[in-house]
């Protein structure tokens, strides 16, 4: 009986925790109409970012090679936490460079772990970096 009690209390605790996690997600993502909804699993893919085809190929290879999709998404592919769609419209090329490399201008906005990771990108070949910046600067779609 005491075992069953402990089991039910544990189950109740987990349900409360999962419910609170869902509440958090719900507050972060109000239903369409209240605020602009973000893409979610199963939702329609957002408007694809427009990118020049020529810049895309080389830049995309660098983007994929660095594993940028772990933290960012383009046209719904990758992590939705930091979507890059439209970044070319929002930021200048040099601003994007600062964000990619975690330079001084942006370091207050990033955690130390992310800054360390971005600092590693400073070692990639200049040509690759420029190709990546071409790709990102060319993203003028939604976002």
């Amino acid at each position, binding site marked *: 009986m005491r075992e069953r009690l402990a*089991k039910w209390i544990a189950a109740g605790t987990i349900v409360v925790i999962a419910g609170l996690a869902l509440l958090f997600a719900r507050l972060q993502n109000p239903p369409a109409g209240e605020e602009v909804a973000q893409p*979610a699993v199963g939702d329609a893919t957002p408007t694809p970012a427009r990118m020049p085809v020529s810049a895309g190929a080389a830049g995309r290879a660098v983007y994929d090679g660095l594993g940028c999709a772990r*933290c960012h998404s383009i046209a719904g592919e990758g992590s939705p936490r930091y979507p890059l769609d439209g970044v070319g419209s929002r930021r200048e090329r040099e601003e994007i460079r600062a964000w990619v490399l975690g330079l001084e201008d942006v370091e207050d906005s990033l955690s130390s*772990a992310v800054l360390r990771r971005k600092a590693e990108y400073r070692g990639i070949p200049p040509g690759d970096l420029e190709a990546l910046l071409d790709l990102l600067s060319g993203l003028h779609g939604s976002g």
Partner: protein
Amino acid sequence: MPPSHGEGGGGELTRPGGTARSPAPDPRPRAGGGRVRAIARALWWTSVYLFLVLFPLLVLLAAPAREGAGLWWDFSMGLGFAGLAVMGIQFALTARFRRASAPFGIDVIYQFHRWVGVGGLLLVVAHYAILRTGFPDALGPASPTSAPGYMTAGRLALFLFGLVVVTSLWRRALRIEYYRWRILHGVVSTAAVVLAALHIQGAGYYTSVRWTRILWIAYSVFWVLLIVYVRLVKPARLLRRPYRVTEVRAERGDAWTLTFEPVGHAGLTFGPGQFVWLTLGGSPFRFREHPFSLSGSAEDPGSLAITIKELGDFTRTVKDTEAGATAYLDGPHGVFSPDNHPAAPGFVFVAGGVGIAPIMSMLRTLADRGDRRPMVLVYGNADRESVIFRDELEALRSRLDLRVVHVLEDPPEGWTGERGLITGEIVRRALPPRASELHYFICGPTPMSEAVQKALRDQGVPLRRVHFELFNMV
């Protein structure tokens, strides 16, 4: 023989008995507070637990990092944070903080630890499953050679959490020896929590805002301190409070009584029916400890003692202990005590085999106090010769208003008493008048305990007057 009091199968968390003595004049653990105060304490510690477990989610709710990234994505992140919090706080549940466990009984805390651990794993699995299904690109490659360290740390943590749960739920089926399991459990769970914390730190979600980052670091430091306390501080404190084995005495029924005296300190204060974790012949840092009931009178100052039946790997070696050996006692623990029910008009004790140990502590203590409330002991054993404390029980009848009902599986010729295993029917026959008003203490094999509980329920005895503890978990 009674699996719930003999450390069968090589040392699971079970409770053989013991006798202990306390130098303190009033060894009662915490009776007089009343039910209201007990409930208030239970609610307080439940709130503390929920706050600690929900802390990361509360921080997230109070300070959303930025606009949402999608319902499922944010739900997955919330589950990940919460899952780690549940697993991190597991260390506190088994740290045996006496104040926190007292309102519930440490056996319930351990059972809760077991099942909430399974729930915590489900949260973490759900966190991963949502990402795997909905956002495979965000997970990147699984290979540790190409994945960044923090992602590998997360995957490894998930695997290790699974390993911890599987080896705990199915230790016996997997034939993992108890000591090995304890070491595995401690090392792997610590590694899993550390790896999961590194994963969160590396991923950087929700930790990019300065003040939430500071809170998260403080929370992680809390875990580290908790682990340090459990693994280092607590054993170190035990090391400073050693005991010396003063006697190893043979009892009936392949049982042995070990007595102890404190070395350089005042010893411990306990209530009848409480138990200690015993470390014998080794350092407390090795975590080779077992729970044993204290079976002596709580009113009798002097050396502590426990009575152990030869049932498992460890208990079979107890008789080889020599007087003068060093031991460490962590305790007392448990709420299985008549001292918690001072208004009880009388008691019925039901014991199977060495399950008599904590009940012997109660009887000895009540006799020393001159208690005249009516008591019945229903005591099951294999045969007359294996009745532990047989002679002393006879003697106690003259000091207490005590009726002893022996139940023997293999009774001698001419036996007119109860025979077979203790059943609900036998207990029903033994019940005195006004049975529903008495308090019941049950200690023995699980089938016996369950049969007795059912019989008492059928007789209209309220659940709050039936006391037993759970000690078969891994």
